[in-house]
């Protein structure tokens, strides 16, 4: 059992290093009575099973490509998994995971941000996370990013990670994207009547033929952002929505003093937390949620479905 969360990085480039370091981490967890899950590629699941022998029956094996679909979903899944283990009486939890392959650079960037977010998202849980990076398979820039997102190193080099950076800085750097003006969006009413706003947005979603489940998600997500704009941002300065290519966008700009918390909406809510769950919900229900500086100094949230 562990008192607090650990988040270790294991970088390797041959299978014997994997076999030397990873199965013992898993086996030790089983020994200590921890709940243990491994989220790996097919090849590494095979290596792990072979090394563990009969012990592997007490380990949950998950295919990494089915778990790591998008960072928001992976955070929610891990959160639910961890809460489930704890509810069922686990006193310690060990996860050993590696990212599958992604195609686009911006996807990889988001997973680097995800690694940084983990440090905050699960702080306080009796959870040991071991992240496996195969240098032969993963892009060099991703491994370099991972080196800034893990506080501790495991392997032939072992100990505190000197490259570890403030998670907020890592997320900010990883998620920096050019801002498109999106002139094709059309204005909606200012949202001072939330019920009427949802009515208008419902109509726009139906006109754009957005599927029902996506439309419901967008409606709730936009409502949460609107609530923030009125509760914390002095109301809205511009509300727009419409189709952009094959996606639907709703943009809500507020009149506040701006906001710079790159982790906003990425930390799973705790049952009695007073605030902050709105953006979490909005991120969970949309494909992307960009927080941008609004032209007049406020905050603009762009929700994509």
């Amino acid at each position: 059992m562990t008192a607090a969360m650990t988040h270790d990085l294991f970088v390797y480039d041959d299978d014997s290093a994997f076999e030397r370091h990873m199965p013992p981490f898993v086996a030790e967890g089983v020994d200590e009575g921890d709940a243990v899950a491994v989220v790996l590629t097919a090849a590494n699941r095979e290596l792990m099973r072979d090394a563990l022998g009969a012990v592997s029956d007490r380990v949950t094996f998950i295919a990494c490509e089915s778990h790591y679909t998008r960072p928001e979903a992976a955070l929610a899944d891990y959160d639910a998994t961890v809460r489930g283990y704890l509810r069922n009486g686990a006193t310690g939890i060990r996860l050993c995971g590696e990212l599958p392959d992604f195609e686009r650079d911006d996807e990889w960037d988001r997973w680097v941000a995800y690694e940084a977010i983990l440090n905050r998202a699960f702080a306080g849980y009796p959870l040991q996370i071991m992240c496996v990076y195969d240098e032969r398979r993963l892009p060099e820039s991703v491994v370099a990013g991972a080196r800034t997102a893990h506080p501790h190193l495991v392997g032939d080099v072992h100990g505190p990670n000197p490259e570890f950076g403030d998670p907020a800085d890592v997320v900010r750097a990883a998620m920096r994207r050019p801002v498109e003006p999106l002139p094709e969006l059309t204005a909606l009413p200012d949202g001072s009547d939330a019920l009427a706003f949802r009515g208008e947005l419902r109509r726009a979603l139906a006109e754009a033929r957005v599927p029902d489940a996506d439309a419901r998600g967008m409606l709730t997500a936009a409502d949460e952002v609107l609530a923030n704009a009125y509760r914390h941002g002095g109301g809205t300065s511009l509300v727009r929505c419409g189709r952009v290519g094959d996606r639907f966008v709703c943009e809500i700009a507020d009149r506040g003093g701006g906001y710079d918390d790159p982790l906003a909406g990425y930390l799973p809510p705790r049952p009695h937390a007073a605030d902050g769950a709105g953006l979490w919900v909005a991120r969970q229900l949309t494909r992307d949620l960009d927080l941008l500086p609004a032209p007049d100094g406020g905050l603009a949230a762009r929700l994509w479905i």
Partner: protein
Amino acid sequence: MIDSDFALAVRPGEHACTRAADASDRERIAAAFVRDGLDRGNKIVYLCDRGDVEELVARLGAHDCRVQQALATGQLEVHPAHDFYCRDGVFDPDAVLARWHEGYRRARAEGYRALSLTGEMSSALCEIPGIDGLGRYEQGIADLLRDDGGVAFLCQYDHGRFASGVLAEAAATHPVDVSPELAPIGRVGCLSAARVHPGPTLRLAGELDFDVSDTVAAVLDAHYHGDLQLDLADLRFVDVAGMRALRGRKGQRLRIIAASHAVETMVRLLAWDSDPAIEMPPAGTAVAA
């Protein structure tokens, strides 16, 4: 125009009463009830206990443009309550109940899906001979609802006109009670609430968002103490602020006996499903509200 800002916390097959003191509160509930009946393809019978039936029709029409058409086709009937209840000058519960049964059969024969009945219970009714049989009458309605599927019955008690004993009895004989302390919830956004017996359970219908969450929290704070049992199957929209309003005092237990998809989604996203202070129905029993 159809006033979409009205929610209704009464379902088919239920016997409900509203005891609101404020005429505009009762009117909102009655208009929502009429609209619900029209939406369902029901025959609607409205017993009007005021001097001016025309005025009532005009007011209902202002909330829903389909009202005139429904009157013309016979889908909506408005009758003076006094004449309906006292055909022979006396209130005879059994005779009135027999007329309701007959009305249901006729509505079904005319092709309507069911019957929505609502009656204003106010001034003149208090003085008619035989009104002491009101309790027996209300009891008989329960049998009617059991026998004739899909009938909904809304009794509109004018809080100012009845003695408190009659109102208490009314509350006791109606399983669904849009009770006076819930009236503020009906005035904001598109939201309605009712107490459902036995339980008692608080039922919310409509949209519970950050605009109305403070109102709900204030009503709960003033009138609901201790553990809270909730029926949220008719909540078609809810956001984080709305969910938080239900939390009430710290440590208060919540028992959610029915949940819409919107509520289920929010419970999952907020991790309420692992909170020991919250009891949920089994997953997968959500209702598409």
